[in-house]
């Protein structure tokens, strides 16, 4: 019980640290949101219109008091669940905007992660089973190489190859001429728009699973219980699936939980390149516009997701493998 209490205590403490850092990090950057917004709207080759800057400062409300008192104010707002008003999407609230983008990213990322986890674990397990065979070598070599490619670079090649070159997929946006909702037209539209961003993410993500699963499985295949099972004359299939693979899966599953939390960061670049209407694009935009309320909320969301995933993974590990309780504390 103490173990779980400690975990939760740490969770709350870390959350506070993250909230604090989220508040101060963006504000320590140089640049004025109002000037930035006017400049962006006008373009690089335009003189900054001081009247417009003044008006926008008025509109967004110039923060009063020291940074310190603003911080306390922010904590108070958070306690009431108030995330403030977005600068970029004024007068809409931060949560309203995030609500629009949320499902786009969640669906994209879930599909990509589940698929890549499945593919990665399968390939890894199979490679380990046929260790040092041709399949193993090919999988290890290819997945190592592919995993080192820059997502940006892959996106570029995909856009020009499959997007413009062959004209198979839409290259920007989440959908085009259908009405969002549960209808075939929209689902189809969304899939044809989401394919390239998903593929870009897919190419890079399974790699960790492949190698991780392969190595753990190799270790497990060397364990006594597997040798025993083999010696007992159990069929290969049973040994592989029921014994080795199942045990090798444990670290991968907890790893999967951890990876889900950190996934938002990875979507910033891909969503931006594909003009995909999700949270990653929103985060890139908030950084660019110095939309502090938006940035804070998104960073908090990311951090909470990561923390929760960590907590779940830790607790899960503690339950599944009592030996790990002390080591993982």
């Amino acid at each position: 019980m103490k173990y779980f209490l400690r975990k939760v205590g740490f969770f709350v403490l870390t959350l506070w640290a993250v909230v604090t850092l989220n508040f101060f990090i963006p504000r320590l950057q140089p640049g004025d949101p109002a000037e930035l917004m006017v400049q962006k709207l006008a373009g690089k080759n335009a003189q900054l219109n001081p009247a417009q800057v003044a008006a926008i400062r008025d509109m967004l409300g110039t923060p009063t008091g020291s940074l310190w008192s603003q911080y306390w104010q922010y904590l108070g707002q958070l306690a009431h669940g108030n995330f403030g008003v977005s600068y970029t999407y004024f007068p809409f609230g931060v949560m309203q905007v995030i609500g629009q983008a949320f499902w786009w990213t969640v669906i994209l990322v879930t599909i990509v992660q589940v698929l890549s986890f499945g593919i990665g674990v399968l390939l890894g397990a199979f490679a380990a089973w046929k260790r040092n065979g041709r399949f193993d070598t090919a999988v290890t070599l290819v997945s190592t190489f592919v995993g080192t490619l820059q997502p940006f670079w892959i996106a570029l090649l995909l856009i020009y190859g499959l997007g413009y070159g062959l004209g198979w997929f839409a290259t920007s946006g989440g959908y085009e001429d259908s009405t969002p909702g549960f209808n075939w037209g929209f689902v189809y539209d969304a899939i044809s728009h989401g394919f390239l961003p998903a593929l870009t993410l897919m190419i890079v993500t399974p790699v960790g699973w492949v190698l991780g699963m392969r190595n753990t499985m190799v270790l497990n295949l060397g364990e006594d219980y597997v040798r025993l099972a083999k010696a007992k004359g159990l069929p290969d299939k049973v040994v592989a699936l029921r014994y080795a693979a199942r045990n090798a899966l444990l670290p991968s599953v907890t790893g999967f939980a951890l990876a889900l939390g950190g996934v938002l960061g990875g979507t910033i670049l891909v969503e931006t390149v594909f003009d995909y209407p999700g949270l990653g694009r929103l985060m890139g935009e908030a950084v660019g516009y110095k939309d502090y309320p938006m940035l804070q909320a998104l960073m908090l969301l990311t951090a909470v997701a990561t923390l929760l995933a960590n907590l779940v993974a830790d607790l899960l590990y503690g339950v599944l493998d009592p030996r790990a309780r002390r080591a993982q504390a």
Partner: protein
Amino acid sequence: MGLRRTLVAVIAVLTSLTLLTTGCAGSRLAHEREARRNHSGGTGGMIPQLNLPAEFDASVGGLVNYNPYAPQQLVKTWLYEPLMVQDSLSCGVTPWLATKYTWVGSNKLIFDIRQGVKWSDGSAFTPNDVVTTLNLMKKYPAMDVNGLWTSAFGAPATSVTAQGDQVIITFAGPAVSKFSSILGNLIVPAKIYGKVGDPTKYVDKKPVSTGPFLVGSYNGRRLELDRNPDYWQADKIKVQKLVLQGNYDANQAVQMLRNGDLDFYTGEIPNPIKTFVDPNPQLNHVWYAPNGSTVLAPNLTRKPFSDVRFREAMAYGVNKQQASLKATYGLMQVASQSGLTLPAKKDLLPPGYALNGGASTILAYDPAKANQLLDAAGYTKGPDGFRRNPDGSPIKLTFAVQAGFIDYQAVADEVVSNLRALGIDISVVASQPDSVDALKKTGDFDIMINYMAAGCDYVNGVGATLATAQIPTKTTILGNVERYSNPTVDQALKNLNGETDQAKVKDEVGVLVNTMMTQYPVVPLFYAPARAIYRTDKAAGWPSAEDPYCNPQDNARIWMTRLSAAK
């Protein structure tokens, strides 16, 4: 071997799914493109549809707001309208919701409001709408984006009243230089915006507007606007449907333009001639109109830039042609040292410079002359091969440039290698654009690239680069980044602020030109563009180099009235 079979099956399913989607998507996109091509013929001189990028410069769709006084709105151009439209290239004024303007002295401006204009809900547009809109800006400063009630560009307004069909604006003092910006205020319906409290916080979902288009449909991404048949100049609008969709980066925009998925674009695209025009010179066109200048802004409070002789040498010693080639693919001409964009503003040049449309104000690259000027001014070379200040102190300079602006970085590299060839120890330091902005405020830099506005109001255009009052402060970036200060210039600008007589305006602008030509406060490199990148398969009559009737980037309202169906 069950594992293998499962694996093979999974891969097979995935592959077939991929092929299925790709096959369908492929044929669908091709089909749409085909449909668009067939549409392009036009019916009865009308243009069935034009595709433009979204005017909403942000990613998340589905949040509907047409309020023109929100920082971002779904439609900026086609719903709400201004009193008059001024073309920022020729400075001609086109009557819009007002038919005429009159200055009484320099502190009273009268607009005659157009009769017979209807709001899209059928009610009549009246001078009261104008008065209400402008007075709301007084009550809610957040709405006053053009500084009507502040001293931003001239004396603040003191009252806005209606008198019959006229709207009279009085100012606390000379305010002629406010004219260009006041015109741009978009007029909103009094009966709606007058009752919503702070208009900037109002979410306008059902716009009641006077403009040429009405909202057709919006699915969160694709916004369709339909022609307004009751528009007050409906006879001039030939476009039946406008589709606004997507924010594209430069590369995607090129592809969309090439495919005909976009008909008009004003953003940057890479190497426009090579990537866009050359593949289909019949249909694809670009026009990059001079609209201000990209200038070298040295810090005049620091040695050696505080010495006018050094600045003069620099004006001859940098290869502007080469800089333009690298930054604008050679599309933009070398800029005139006068600070005016030529040939558009050539009539404003004082007699001494007016010959041949101001040819003598465009300084050619002449490193020999630059070396000679530096030698004569006492900047002798030390043993290390670098020049020293006349007082013997060493010169070591940095060129601050925005990291990531590859055109600016190419210019900085070029200028630095030119100056090093003259024996000046200077190197490039690239920083975050935000950090460069911070340097503009603090003045802690040696030299950087800046933008010099052209515009029609010379106090806030050229004047912004030269006026003492326009030196940036600790909190606000203003135009006079190089920190030039000269009482003669300040007096000329003050005079311009109260001047409505064009002959006298020319005299005062002459003072500015003379300052630029003899004092070299900044060194213009090449003109900055207003871009028109367009296709002529559906519509003809776009502003172009042959027919430069308006600024393509800022004056979409004007070109919309000039478009006709392609033949």
